């Protein structure tokens, strides 16, 4: 099987070259920014007490024993996952109920619209008073932020399911439950995963906001604490870790999507 034409080989080579250029540029930009940052703080153009610097951030990161960084990462991670799983799970179920019962949907629609545009962070103090100023408040915060978006997003997907496919199932005598399990749910796996991708990021927002309010531990706590005692290295290092965590969690959802769609929806 060496029957690849010269044109094809050239085309593939060109494609690969393009891809490499993009990767190189992406890494290059980051490297240049870091080098400039380090350079200007070394020669004193940038005040590294206020701005920190890559080397100081690195030093903080390696000094994990002193600042319990791993513990804080663990706390934020768990809180985010809890908020994410609760928010998405409840959201997907609520969407089922709203799809199932049109009256319930029509009645709740204005509430959903208002809840969706309300900045959930404004509920922070209320949540703290209701569930207590601890981790539970942080998790509820994450849940509150991701829940409504999930409900609306997934419900939209359910409602947009191909009417003709539903009609086809009906022509075989399918009841509502069968229509849901055989047509609506499998049609919407991609929609559900897209909403999970949004909701994992939102949960992290909720957790950090929660940790700002009830600071006992976590990256949000570290950032607030670092700011208060003017340890910019700690703040910057935490933000850096947070960015990495957000990326990894997102990639986690993408990975799960690949696996699960591969099993449940192999034809796509």
């Amino acid at each position, binding site marked *: 099987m060496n029957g690849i034409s010269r044109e094809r080989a050239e085309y593939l080579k060109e494609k690969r070259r393009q891809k490499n250029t993009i990767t190189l540029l992406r890494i290059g930009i980051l490297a240049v920014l870091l080098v400039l940052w380090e350079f200007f703080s070394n020669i004193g153009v940038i005040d590294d007490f206020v701005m920190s610097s890559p080397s100081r951030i690195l030093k903080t990161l390696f000094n994990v024993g002193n600042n319990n960084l791993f513990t804080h990462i663990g706390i934020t991670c768990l809180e985010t996952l809890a908020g994410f799983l609760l928010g998405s799970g409840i959201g997907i179920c609520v969407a089922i109920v709203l799809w199932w019962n049109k009256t319930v949907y029509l009645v709740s629609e204005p509430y959903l619209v208002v809840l969706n545009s309300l900045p959930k962070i404004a509920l922070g103090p209320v949540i703290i008073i209701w569930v207590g100023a601890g981790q539970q408040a942080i998790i509820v915060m994450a849940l509150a932020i991701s829940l409504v978006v999930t409900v609306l997003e997934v419900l939209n997907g359910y409602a947009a399911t191909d009417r003709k496919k539903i009609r086809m*199932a*009906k022509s075989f*005598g*399918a009841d509502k439950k069968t229509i849901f399990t*055989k047509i609506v749910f*499998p049609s919407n*796996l991609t929609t559900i995963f897209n909403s999970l991708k949004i909701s994992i990021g939102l949960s992290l927002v909720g957790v950090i906001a929660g940790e700002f309010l009830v600071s006992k531990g976590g990256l949000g706590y570290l950032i607030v604490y670092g700011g208060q005692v003017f340890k910019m290295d700690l703040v910057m290092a935490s933000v850096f870790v947070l960015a990495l965590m957000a990326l990894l969690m997102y990639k986690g959802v993408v990975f799960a999507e690949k696996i699960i769609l591969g099993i449940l*929806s192999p*034809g*796509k």
Partner: protein
Amino acid sequence: MEIEDILKVENLCCKYQAENGEVEALKNIGFSIKKGEIVGIIGPSGCGKSTLLSIIAGLEKKTSGSVIVAGQEVSGVNSAVGYMMQNDNLLEWRNIYRNVLLGLEIRKECTEENREYAKRLLEEYGLGEFCDKYPSQLSGGMRQRVALIRTLATRPEILLLDEAFSALDYQTRLKVSQDVWEILKREGVTAVMVTHDIPEAISLSDRVMVLTPRPARIKNIHTVDMTEPPMKRRNDSRFSGYFNLLWEEIN
């Protein structure tokens, strides 16, 4: 003793209620179909053909009149009726074999025997080797045949086809309608077939029913006096006679 009428429609009326008023789609429709017959329905666009089939399939409610399938008044979806639309509506996430089983699964009739039957139909009609493939890997004509087998697997006594071939390109359509005609005749399935295509109606049907503009009434029912397969009929000397007759009537 006369041969049993598998479908009997009497004085059927249907009015749709919508916010901006009432639409009268069917008015005093009455006809009957014998076992094994293929009946074509033609009529102007929007006259109520789909409505008629939906009511027979139990998917839509009639306003008055009666529809009797296999001796029973229709009052909802009925396992004696198979219904097929313009789109094949195959589920992309199921392979061909599992798509074909969908109707049986929904009806909770997915027995060993019925699965065997579905498999036999797939093999008999040239789709045996595609069982493990997915719909996106099949051509339009093959997909439509899969959709037909999905319906036939539930062993309907009467098959309703609503413009079932109109999404296909012309060549595929000729080929698929030839195949479908053979399948229906061989399996002895009664069929009611709505189409926009007059030659298609003549080449497949034993009788052709012409409807008036909305609200649809029966204008005429013609017996097609040809028994050969569709492609041969198109070359029959009587073919153009039928065409002209129906063309006049519909316009």
